[in-house]
């Protein structure tokens, strides 16, 4: 039984793990959390669960069990209430992505514009194996070198300039599959 529970908050290593420092409740992270918590009425701290999860994911790449405990402590709620949020939202991850995480839009207008072909090309170039994708536990695939990870996202709301993708926080549009290689070059180390 405890294995089942532990697996829910486990963050198995990925080739991308080396790019991220393990979670630590630093002064900076606590100060960011204070600012977010202050945005909600004092008796409604639970509202800050998503903002705090975003801080953690932005700073440390993914949501570890230590981070879940820290958020629960900061908001005065049980860790399960943080975990239920983590496991619901497609935008939150429990394992390390690559240094650059690519989200390709999969939905109708982008698919008509060639987003599946774009994804194929990206996987070919980064050697990420899309068949390894397990939508329930590890919806992203990290390349063997750890630099890249890919994921299909649902509608990124730029259907007029299809196909589109996000690389970390940068938005790219009008990405015909043949532009895949140029896209990756922008992020090469």
């Amino acid at each position, binding site marked *: 039984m405890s294995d089942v529970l532990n697996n829910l908050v486990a963050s198995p290593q990925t080739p991308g793990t080396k790019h991220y420092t393990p979670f630590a409740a630093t002064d900076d992270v606590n100060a960011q959390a204070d600012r977010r918590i202050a945005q909600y009425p004092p008796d409604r701290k639970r509202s800050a669960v998503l903002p705090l999860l975003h801080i953690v994911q932005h700073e440390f790449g993914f949501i570890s069990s230590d981070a879940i405990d820290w958020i629960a402590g900061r908001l005065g709620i049980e860790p399960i209430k943080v975990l239920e949020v983590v496991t619901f*939202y497609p935008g939150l991850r429990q394992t390390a992505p690559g240094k650059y995480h690519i989200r390709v839009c999969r939905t*109708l207008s982008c698919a008509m514009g060639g987003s599946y072909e774009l994804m194929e090309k990206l996987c070919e170039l980064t050697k990420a194996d899309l068949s390894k994708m397990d939508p329930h536990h590890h919806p992203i695939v990290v390349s063997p070198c750890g630099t890249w990870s890919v994921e299909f996202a649902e509608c990124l709301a730029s259907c007029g300039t*299809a196909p589109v993708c996000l690389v970390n926080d940068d938005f790219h549009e009008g990405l015909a599959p043949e532009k895949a290689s140029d896209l990756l070059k922008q992020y090469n180390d």
Partner: protein
Amino acid sequence: MSDIQYIHGKQPHPREYRLIFRNVDRVGWDPSLHTYRNDGGYEQLRHALTMDPKAITDEVKASGLRGRGGAGFPTGVKWGFIPPNNTKPVYLICNADESEPGTFKDRYILHQDPHQLIEGMVISCFAVGAKLAYIYVREEFPEAAHILERALAEAREANLLGHNILGSGFDCEIHVHRGAGAYICGEETGLIESLEGKRPYPRIKPPYFPAAMGLYMCPTIVNNVESLCHVKHIIRMGGEEYSKLGTPRNTGTRIVCVSGDVKKPGYYEIEVGKLTMGELLHEVCGGPKDGRSFKAVIPGGSSAKIMRCEESFKIGKGDDAKTLSFYDLPLDFDTLAAAGSMAGSGGVIVMDDSRRMSWVLNNLNKFYAHESCGQCTPCREGSTWMRKITDRLVAGTAAPSDIDTLNSIAYQIDGKTICAFGEACSWPVEAMIDKFRDELISETSESNEGIAHSAENEAQRRFLQPSQS
């Protein structure tokens, strides 16, 4: 308006009427407060703060503004639902979750004209008596969230937010709240649950109408980005004058987002009902790609029912009834509803004769199966069943009876769930079967009848038909 220059290649089409998108792609424009104020920004707020809040709501009611998020509910009427004897705090939420496939209008407002939204929001807060408001931005807009944070800080600095705004005695604060990639957060009660820090399972209405029992069980007004921007223009023009834009019952302008198989996809702001589908697709969007012809259109975001381009529709009742071809349908809320679809979020997805409808439907079914929140059984299970059946259809392993099964699943979801996601995921299936049954059937084969599609299926078949195993 004539002195405004637009970036080369991004000039509005002559048939457009730029109100909300006035500053989008404008030469010399940036999202700063300085630029916005130099252009007369926040003057409507200054004026609104001298008005009686009730009078602002009355202007919005008189304007006839209908919500631009998808449902098309009159905004002023929504505001009026706050209980009159209310003693709790009132909240206002701007729904910037923009996640209906085919829709991409809020993106440009947030990126290029954030102060227009903030001005509209502060006016709306003053009208409904809200002192705290949130902008719920989808997680996939990280840059928009950043721009909004900066714009809000600028507004705070200039006393356009915070305590005693412009000396009026009115206090108001607005914060950005980022989602995390869930379509269901665009549903207003799901959004509220998400903002409360929970899983975004929508609440049942009645009793949980947000205007009475919303965020933290307090009266809450949830409006779309575009709707809130319109409020500023309603104050500037007066509700009466604004209502002369567009057509009666379908007033104002709206941003139509066109994507898919047209020569010039993009965003076009038009007076509601003043353009027909044909004018939009042929004149404004440049028609179909070379050598192709239009086959089908989804007129209001992916949840809207698909329409065939060669169809005609009977619109109106009694003596006013008339038959219109698809291309003669005016783009407004009521006509598209009468034609059996909806204007929804304004996302027009166009498909030409190169598209297989089974593939289109499968793409949408994957979306809805992924995005069902899982709260109601018909939707949670049914959306995945529908995806699996269309997976088979695309793979060529479906039987003709699968189409009837698909249809019956859709009708067993439709109307049987807590929120409108049930309709959103079943309407595309119902409409596709209704309009393209023959095409779908042609991709099936009698020989696939009864074959097992999984190990479980095979085990079941052996159990039921041991003699044939």
